[in-house]
């Protein structure tokens, strides 16, 4: 016990790097194992959560926007539309806006998160009015 106390309380006169008292190898290994055992899963979990929130949303929104754009172009359904869509664990808002510029149609597809004003993804292209 005294040894431990000595090791925890460095002598004032000794420089810190030359201090002889410290943790034993076993104690240090155990502490390291515990630390790693907690940190690694925590870091992985944190990473997964972080990736889900940023990238997963972006990925899903990109795919939804692309799919909606392709559907619009194939079906030539050039009318404004807004719809809600459930995908994964989230509800998405998709808007299709068509602007006719003298026979040239500007098609904009936007994908929003719920309750968000700014779109997460926006794709736009043009077609000649049939």
């Amino acid at each position: 016990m005294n040894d431990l106390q000595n090791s925890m309380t460095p002598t004032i006169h000794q420089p810190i790097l030359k201090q002889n008292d410290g943790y034993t190898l076993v104690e240090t290994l155990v502490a390291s194992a515990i630390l790693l055992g907690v940190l690694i899963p925590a870091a992985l979990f944190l990473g997964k959560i972080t990736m889900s929130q940023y990238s997963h949303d972006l990925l899903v929104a990109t795919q939804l926007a692309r799919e909606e754009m392709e559907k619009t172009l194939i079906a030539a359904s050039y009318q404004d539309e807004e719809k809600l869509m459930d995908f994964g664990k989230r509800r998405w808002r998709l808007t299709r806006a068509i602007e006719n510029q003298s026979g040239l149609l500007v098609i904009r597809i936007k994908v929003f998160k719920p309750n968000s004003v700014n779109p997460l993804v926006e794709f736009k292209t043009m077609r000649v009015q049939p």
Partner: protein
Amino acid sequence: MYANSCNLGQTVEMKHEKNFKSVGSFLSVGDIELWVINLLFMNRFDSNMPRPHALCALRSACNNTQGSALVLALVMVTIVTGMIGIIMMAVQLQWRFIREEQNRIQALYLAEAGVYKTLWYLSGNGGKDIGWRPENELVELFDDETASITVKEWGGYLRITSTAQARHVAKSLRALAGEMPSSAFQQAIVIGGVDYPLVVTGRNRIIGNVTVGPEGVKKGRIKGRDFDGENLVDGKIDRQNKPQRPYFNSALFHNVLQKYLLVLADSAKHLLQSNNVVLSQIQDERIHVEGDLHINLNDSTQKVRGPKRISSSKNVLINGATQILDNVELVAGGKIIVTDHAVLRNCVLFARTGIEVSGESQINGQLLSTGDIILKERSVLHYPSVVYCRSTFADNAWRGRILLQDQTVVRGTLILDSGQWKRSKENNETIVQITPNAKVVGAVYSMHNTEHRGQVIGSIITGQVFLYESPTIYLNWLQDAITDRAQLPEGFLLPIGFSAQPQLDVLHWEEVKLNGEREMGRNGDEVKE
């Protein structure tokens, strides 16, 4: 054995007798194992127990109270920081990949928008017309985005290259544009002349509307054979009093022919010196041969790929397992002969004195000539092929024929251009001839005669219908032919020139990599800018 070597206290030995028995098989493995077992199962360390040398060293290390707490703490902090850094980098990288993909998709949509805005301009909007030929011209698309546009002729079609950028990602698309069929091509048959009725006989079938002279459609008899169908026409009959000549502006084709004639005139600097070369290994985009050129690869794995312009002052013979693919232009001062299962794809062939395709050859391309174009022996021209013959006046007669024989199939458009509509009664030197087993899926446009005995899935627009049954020439007679406008696939596009304000659409897309490297096109083939 255990007690002899380890000298354990009696109390402890009794207390853990069971445990020792259960691990009895380990007792002979050595001092270290015994020592560890004792430590583990006795829950104590007996200082009197004899220790092996290595064990003593381990014990000594474990009891050593001298350590490096700060160093170890720093190592741990470094490891943890590194791990967090890696995770953050992974997140950042993934986010960047997705953003990159997003920009890539948007750049492609912008490039597409560039192509469609170009089609809009070429259709006569925005102060431009079908003659507009921009070269890397910036076209405004949306608020702050532009596309760089180039328009060039590719045979009878237009080739539009559009390059656009979304943030730092640039994409380039190349589109082949054709013209939507005008109202005349909604008919099954349009006969420009009004002097004779359209007479049908034998097993002739017409499905779709027809436009003919004031005498309409009648049935007739040739050599004792009557018309054996139910209806003369399965569609409406539009009688016209004045000759109707559907619009055709051949300026684009004339420009193309002129361009190839200039290629022949200006070919000296691209002259190929060697007589026997491996064509597929020549990197030059322009090659010229004085005299005849014979292309025979004899190996289906060898391919000549474009972009290439190969010209010959005389004839070009292509045969064997030759494959000529993707943006190859073949120009001949004499004839071009394609035979013996040759395959040509996305090519333009121009020959001054004629083109002959035979031997089950397969072509997806455009055949342009100022001489006869003959397709025979089960040759197939795939959509969107074009066969264009510009008839010439020589020896007091117009000459230029498109002949489809021997189960030939053409999916595309046949055009016989004689400059102006003519209706000479007995001249069969200027004619589109479709023999009984030949088939056209698309359109036939002949300013002069058309002899139709085969099958046309689409439209025929002609000055007059010509039929020869020895020894008689019948004008505006159809015998045993099938003309079916209803079966023409939707979305069929014509070459440019059949409307003053054409409605254009895209025939074919390909993605082009910008820095000159090859990239897979949308049709799965390599494409090169």
